[in-house]
């Protein structure tokens, strides 16, 4: 087994610093488990020294060939930050797995099993990635490693939960998967109080099979803002200023612990300590045990220069990515809206993009209302190869894949009418007025190579959307009960009074003369019959 650590740090254009940790464990000559052996409970015994045991057990139990799990928070700004080192930067939790199997039910059962097992392992609510969030996109997620040839078809399951929070309880088990935990090596820099303060942070787990063996890659990507953190407002960064930690000693079982710092293109700066090797615009350090702790950093003598985006600027900054994308949900009502995507091609050549939308069933598409405009000219020929899996309400999300062609230096607008669902009373989350987070759309450039074959470039994720669905008045059951009870009481009271109250007409005789005492007793006898109507008669005495 081999364990390697690698950290790559880059200063970005807007003064931020991105760092990408990568911890790779390779289990040599190991093969993922054949799912046909799952019927027999006992598995060939697995011995690991550096490979994480808890993860290995999960992989063997559900016969997973390839798996990617990411827990991210924040919005990755492609226009100013460029491409990330690890492409999966979709917000929230995203899990996808390649599994082999001969029947769909066995794959779905194992998918549910692996979701819940990872939910327990990472303290994340991945159990909610059920069939209402699971899709199988055909083209957008090719396997990163190799798929063993067992004669069984491999299937992809992909699910995402954009409103998942990431916090220290997700980082704790992540660090426990490393052989040196967070005690030595580069993992000592992972300080949760700084990581979760970063402008963008994400932790990821990638398991794939290479011909050499099974590889597990744990990565942490962070985007810090030294201009905000530092007291002087300077762009300088160092391990101590970013992570509040230094690397005291290297992990003894790591075969290599390397740090690479990308040297900025322009300006005067100093990278310290002296790099051991400079190659391709990057400074490389090999962290071996030193007398003092490693505190790598870069400093600038002058303050940071904020770039002014002026159209008259002679040389605008070259775009870091070939295209920019924004996605919006338009419309003021709570029953329908419009999904709008605006893509800008920053380069001269025509660009072909694979556009994937895995929309939960709460937002339903009307495909016949797709309108594609290029620079405000309707161009329906720019969308092709539409593949659509219908959403099933309460059961399955929609999977929409299509190929969009962007002519050079143009802006493409894609819009489609959508209908918003009216949920059942019990389907609303406890904070229903917040709305529902929709998972990001994924754009993959299709590169046509010289011999005509297509290959996929690096994925781009849009931010998630928040859709506001109609919420009922949750206090209505109480109101209904109170109202109904009042009406029932009113009806019952009235009917009861009508049935039991007796109205009697009482004839009041004129007052007898004083010497006739007998008639007074007679009057008293008559009055006792109609006791209740006495009050009625007192008002009539005047009339009489």
């Amino acid at each position: 087994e081999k364990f390697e650590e690698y950290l790559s740090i880059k200063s970005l254009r807007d003064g931020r610093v991105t760092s990408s940790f990568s911890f790779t464990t390779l289990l040599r000559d190991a093969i993922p488990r054949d799912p046909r052996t799952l019927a027999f409970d006992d598995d060939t015994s697995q011995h690991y020294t550096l490979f994480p045991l808890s993860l290995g057990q999960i992989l063997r139990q559900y016969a997973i060939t390839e798996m990617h799990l990411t827990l991210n928070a924040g919005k990755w700004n492609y226009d100013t930050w460029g491409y990330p080192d690890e492409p999966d930067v979709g917000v929230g939790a995203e899990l996808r797995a390649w599994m082999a199997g001969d029947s769909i039910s066995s794959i779905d059962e194992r998918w549910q099993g692996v979701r819940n097992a990872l939910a327990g392992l990472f303290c994340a609510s991945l159990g909610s990635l059920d069939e209402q969030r699971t899709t199988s996109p055909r083209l957008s997620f090719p396997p990163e490693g190799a798929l063993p040839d067992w004669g069984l078809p491999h299937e992809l399951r992909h699910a995402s939960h954009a409103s998942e929070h990431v916090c220290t309880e997700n980082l704790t088990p992540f660090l426990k998967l490393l052989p040196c935990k967070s005690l030595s090596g580069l993992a000592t820099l992972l300080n949760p109080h700084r990581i979760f303060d970063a402008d963008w942070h994400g932790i990821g787990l990638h398991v794939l099979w290479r011909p050499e063996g099974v590889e597990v890659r744990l990565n942490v990507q962070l985007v810090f803002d030294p201009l905000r953190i530092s007291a002087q407002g300077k762009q300088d960064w160092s391990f101590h200023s970013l992570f509040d930690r230094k690397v005291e000693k290297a992990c003894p079982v790591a075969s290599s612990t390397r740090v690479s710092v990308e040297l900025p293109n322009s300006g005067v700066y100093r990278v310290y300590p002296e790099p051991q090797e400079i190659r391709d615009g990057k400074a490389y350090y090999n962290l071996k045990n030193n007398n003092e702790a490693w505190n790598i950093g870069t400093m600038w003598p002058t303050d940071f220069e904020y770039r002014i985006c002026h159209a008259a600027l002679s040389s605008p900054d070259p775009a870091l990515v070939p295209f920019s994308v924004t996605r919006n949900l338009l419309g003021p009502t709570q029953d329908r809206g419009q999904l709008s995507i605006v893509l800008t091609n920053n380069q001269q050549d025509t660009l072909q993009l694979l556009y994937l939308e895995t929309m939960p069933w709460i937002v339903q598409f009307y495909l016949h209302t797709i309108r594609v405009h290029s620079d405000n000219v309707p161009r329906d020929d720019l969308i092709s190869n539409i593949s659509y899996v219908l959403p099933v309400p309460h059961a399955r999300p929609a999977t929409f894949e299509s190929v969009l062609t962007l002519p050079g230096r143009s802006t493409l607008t894609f819009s489609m009418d959508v209908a918003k669902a009216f949920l059942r009373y019990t389907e609303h989350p406890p904070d229903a007025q917040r709305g529902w987070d929709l998972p990001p759309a994924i754009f993959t450039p299709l590169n046509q190579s010289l011999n005509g074959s297509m290959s996929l470039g690096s994925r781009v994720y849009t931010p998630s959307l928040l859709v506001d669905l109609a919420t009922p008045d949750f206090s209505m059951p109480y109101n209904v009960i109170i109202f109904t009870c009042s009406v029932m009481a009113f009806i019952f009271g009235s009917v009861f009074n009508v049935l039991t109250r007796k109205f009697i007409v009482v004839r009041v005789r004129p007052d007898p003369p004083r010497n006739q005492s007998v008639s007074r007793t007679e009057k008293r006898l008559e009055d006792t019959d109609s006791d209740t109507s006495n009050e009625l008669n007192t008002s009539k005495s005047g009339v009489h």
Partner: protein
Amino acid sequence: MRLLSLSLFLLFYFLLSSCDASSQHTNNWAVLVCSSRYWFNYRHMANALGMYRTVKRLGIPDSNIILMLADDAACNSRNKFAGSVYANPGRHLDLYGENIEVDYRGYEVTVENFLRLLTGRLSSSVPRSKRLLTDSSSNIFIYLTGHGGNEFLKFQDNEEVSAHDIADAFHQMYEGGRYNEIFFMVDTCQANSMYSKFYSPGILATGSSVVGENSYSHENDYDIGVAVIDSYTHYVLEYMEKVNKTSRLTMADLFTSYDVPKIGSHPGVRSDLFERPLGPGNPNHPMSEYGRGRGWTVEGGGEWMGREIEAGKNGRVLREALITDFFGGVVDVDVNNEDDAELRLFEDPECISTPKAPLSPLTDTYSSPPSSRSSSSLLNMLDTYPFLRPFLAFILLGALFVLVFSGMTSGRS
């Protein structure tokens, strides 16, 4: 012969008494639940995390703690101090730390999940860290905090769990042999009502305020912007700071540390279902006088249910309930007490495994279990055949109308 029979008789007596004294627990579990969501309920999450830290410090490992937080306070975008939760205004101690495992988070904290966790009725896909894997020799510390009222506790501002539900869940646990003893602590408004419906043996309960009384928060932090801890939990945690893994402080020491003017509400204790004595407690505290004193209103049952039988519990044969019985891991086996050691030699193995029968004269007084023998079979039938209720109501209403009408018609004649 007489001597032999006498010694045998004594042996039998000790055997029987050792049955009760052999309620020794072998492992400790903790279930800490914060049931309210939203940023302004930061203090409830701080309550639960404070208990988490105390329980971990005293020795219960993460694998034996189920922590349920209904919202994310540490990494909330409103939190100025990312990744940290503080329980005091000066922000001296970060409760979140770097090594924390939250088993149920966010939307997973529901009444259904809580009751399923307690009773163990979970589907097979639920991972091990989300299960309460207790056995009949586990002591469980259950702590609930949030917003509540008379016999209910609100979960996520959306649904409620009632005291009857929890009492029934505990009884299911008792019948399934899922606990040895439970210490139930609840910090909400009118918290004492939450434990008033328990009827299973082996439960010691305490709450923060009587029926009709609110529990108050303790202090605000002006940088975080919200109240950071509740008053009752603050004083309990402050007391627990004196406790370490080997301390011999008893539960009565904890209960007699309650200072009603400081806490701001009247905490309560329920010990009638708990066989072991609580200990002498602080002799200066009015509670140790079993009744009178400052702050503890004791007329009409008061806030200590089971006070009367406390004096009758045998402190020599039954061990006193220590704080570390619930809050700590089982670290030292006490062999200093020679009586216990002697009794252990003659333990009847059957005695340990059978669940203890409920001590009937005690439980009948306070709340009786719903058994099929008691009350009427009519109520039973109503439960089994749900259509009977509206049917009977219809019949009764019709009979009433018939009577009224006949009465009217006869009255006219």
